[in-house]
């Protein structure tokens, strides 16, 4: 498809749409005073990031993103918001604190990162690669997890177990009453 002399592929159109929704809903996450709506927009932002992963030829990451981030973490955050519901009734000025200074700092950070990205020389060959690229699909992820990365993989499961126990202990209501 050719628009105004530029050759535009469907992948680029999909990228622009997905990135636009991701960034717009991320802005909603940080700007909305109602924290419940912010959490909902976080789910939308993470969901569109899964689309970006699919564009990067990482289907496993897209599935993991939808299952863990959108399915589990967002749900957990929303449940925690329900358990501390006083935060839902506040205005913008109470929820957002010193926005101009923070926007300046974040803008400077973005300027720095963007100049770094633009001024660096990236590998060109992979971008134009046409044929199927092996070594990035689900079997490759499984093999990498079970062969070179098996120790961190098992360590992650131990950490998850410890975190599960720790979160229950922290959030549990005190029956005895001593702190």
């Amino acid at each position, binding site marked *: 498809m050719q628009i105004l002399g530029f050759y535009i592929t469907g*992948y*680029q159109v999909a*990228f622009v749409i997905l*990135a636009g929704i991701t*960034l717009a809903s*991320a802005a909603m996450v*940080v700007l909305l005073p109602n*924290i419940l709506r912010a*959490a909902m927009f*976080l789910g939308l*932002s993470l969901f569109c990031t899964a689309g970006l*992963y699919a*564009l*990067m*030829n*990482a289907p*496993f*990451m897209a599935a*993991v993103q939808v299952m*863990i*981030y959108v399915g589990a*973490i967002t749900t*957990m*955050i929303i449940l*925690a*918001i329900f358990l*501390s519901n*006083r*935060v839902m009734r506040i205005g913008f000025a109470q*929820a*957002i*604190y010193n*926005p101009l200074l923070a*926007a300046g*700092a*974040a803008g400077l*950070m*973005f300027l720095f990162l*963007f100049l770094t*990205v633009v001024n660096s020389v*990236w*590998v060109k060959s*992979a*971008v134009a*690669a*046409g*044929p*199927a*690229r092996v070594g*990035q699909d689900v079997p490759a*992820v499984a093999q*990498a*997890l079970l062969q070179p990365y098996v120790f961190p993989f098992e360590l*992650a499961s131990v*950490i998850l177990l410890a*975190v599960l126990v*720790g*979160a229950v202990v*922290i*959030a549990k209501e005190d029956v005895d009453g001593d702190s």
Partner: protein
Amino acid sequence: MAIHSVGYAIPVTWFLTVGAMLFCIGLFGMMVRRSAIGMLLSIELLLNAANINLVAFGSYLKIPVIAGQIFTVFVITLAAAEAAVGLAIVINIYRNEQHIDADKISAMKL
């Protein structure tokens, strides 16, 4: 129709720019949010931006490496762990102090 080519004709700089924008939005959120849950939401945005960069570099290398995706899996695992512990702490604070304003939580200050 090269379905499996990496982001057909999408330059890697586009993904890196989106990652940088997402990171800065999360940074902004970290600075402006008062409620502890709002700060947790911003942390998720920051981690997500880092994940985008990891997957992009893993996929766009001349010889693609799987490590980008593997490390993203670990980041997501630890993000889930961090969210669980963080929310447990937030719920505990809310039970004790009836608010989760990060500026006013002073029980552990000297």
